[in-house]
């Protein structure tokens, strides 16, 4: 097995992020996948991005400019 290293960005584990834990993942270049030292998540970049999109969905107002207070 290859040594895990940091990826091109510091992708956090998307599963840990769901419970609001910022946990940087390591990247296995041989398998082209990220993995988490805490929760056993493993996935490629596309899977990380898919779950990050899911994380954002809780912010129902994230695209709205509110001007009335």
């Amino acid at each position, binding site marked *: 097995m290859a040594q895990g290293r940091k990826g091109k960005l510091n992708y956090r584990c998307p599963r840990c992020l769901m419970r609001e834990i910022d946990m940087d993942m390591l990247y296995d270049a041989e398998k082209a996948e990220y993995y988490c030292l805490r929760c056993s998540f493993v996935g490629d970049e596309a899977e990380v991005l898919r779950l*990050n999109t899911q994380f954002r969905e809780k912010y129902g107002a994230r695209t709205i400019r509110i001007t009335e207070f």
Partner: protein
Amino acid sequence: MTAFYVNIVHRPEMVPEYLQKEAEQGKVEDLTRGAVLRESLDIFRTQQQTAHDQGLRTTIQMTYASLFNAEAVAIAKDHHARFGDEIGSTFLGLQCAEFREQFRSKELAIWLFSIEDKRRIVDAVFGKFHEVFGFYPTSTGSYYMDAELVNYIKASYPMVRAAVATCWEEGPKAYWNANNSWYTLLDGGPWNPWIPSKRNIHCPASDSDDDIGLVAIPHLSRDLMAVFDGPGSYYGTHPQNLLRGMVNEDRELPYFKNLVDQYRSLATYNDGYAYNMMYVGPGWMSKSGRWEADYALLLKSYQEGMAYYGELKRQGLAQDLTMSEFADVYRRDRSYTRPESALWRDILYSSRRQMFWYADPSMRFCLDMNQGGALVDLRPYAAKLVRPCGVGTKANQDASYPFLVQSLYRAGYFTHYAGEGAVKSCKIGHGQEQADLCTCRTQASFSVEGDTRVVTLEPVTIEFADFSVRVQSIFRLTEGSGEIEIVRRVFDSTRPGVEVSIDEYITACYGTTEYPEDLTGVRLSLIGATGSETIDYAYQCREAELAEAACVEAVVPQVDTRLSLRADGPALGYLREGFSFSPMYTLGVKKTIVEKGELRTWLKVEKAS
């Protein structure tokens, strides 16, 4: 007249933790690594230029490390001369080769050193600052500045009049968010600037004798709802924090402006005064990206945030002040008893939820309109607890100000089918039926009557088996009283002559974290004209009541606090001791009305000793 003051703070942090960690990948530690120093200084320069391009002045907080860097010093002097920026000092960014050699420690948090080391470090930092600039700074700061540290600074360097003194609600949530490795355990302070007490930095000073001598500024202006139940480092006036919280969609971040605008709107509740501070360390704008964001997005979000402050300034809607200037303005017309209020609305999750925050020298509390105005956080500032932190103290890393109620750490209304959680609410009953106002979502409005701030909730409907009533809650806060006056008004009954009970209660405990503390020693008392009852807490699940109670109280010696509840007329008072699976105590006042009527009570927080 409305005034919105903005503090922009930058620091040349020569060895930011995040950049250093990144540069160290696969290498041994080197505090003098040239690439890190250059990048950090470049980012600082970019931040300064971003502010100046928008016509905004900044406070440059020189780190200890930067005082040894001729280029950083030259930039600060130049920007002070050309733009009117203030040159201040910070205890962030202590670590550098010189510090390591002098103090032989890798500790990065000033508040966590022993008091002896704190004093030595203050002297070293201020001494070096004076050597470099020829004067002492008038503003300083860190993520947290404990009262003992500030008292020493004021005694030795009395010219200091402003400090970044806490990160709002960075406590167990921040620790958990950072994989249990970030020791900013600082819950319990005010969210907007305040004049701290000499005895505890979290507490607003009661009077001039209690005044610590400077104006404290929170590190960032944070979302008062999202940060109550989420990481402080996701939701504040720090664009890169928002990217960390993934509040952006693609490369857009409207939430930043929404947050600034909601802070501006707080002028409505605070005699026309509103405040914001933005303080981003260079480590957050790493050229190699951070928090899934590339450098271009980090820079864009920073520039757009600053541009919004610039736009507000150009429209005459914001005043950019340096920290020391702000301290002077803040003190100009401020009495010690004047509270800080905020009726905050959700701007993130698309709910209609509101929370009301209040802080004065006696207490800080929060009402949640999603729970019928239940009190979900209560900090007994009146106790002014002397609670030193750092090496050699009992508290050590736990610098939070204790709560009596914190409904997220200690359950609140919803428990897992056993025991009780910490919350203050009211139950409306008839016969064997009962409804807790925690289950009745509502909305609130704010008004001022002389020296009383009033939070009025929209009435809610309670439905019993064969009739219904409407109930309105009103919270009245008279300046300087140290009390919350609570009115529960029952009206519009659908059955004439029906009896309805109003049960005002508070279930409380004490602590700074999610975990229970020992309640042994807590004394619960009922006091009335016809007698009194006392329970010394021993987890025995005992209860007591008194038909005409003048006062129901709990004395919690662990936090030197007396918490009491009294009614405006004859009412039944009661006490409930908890048990080990429900480590709480309950104080209550109950009254029965016919068809319509009200119960008026006062919740008071006092120093016990």
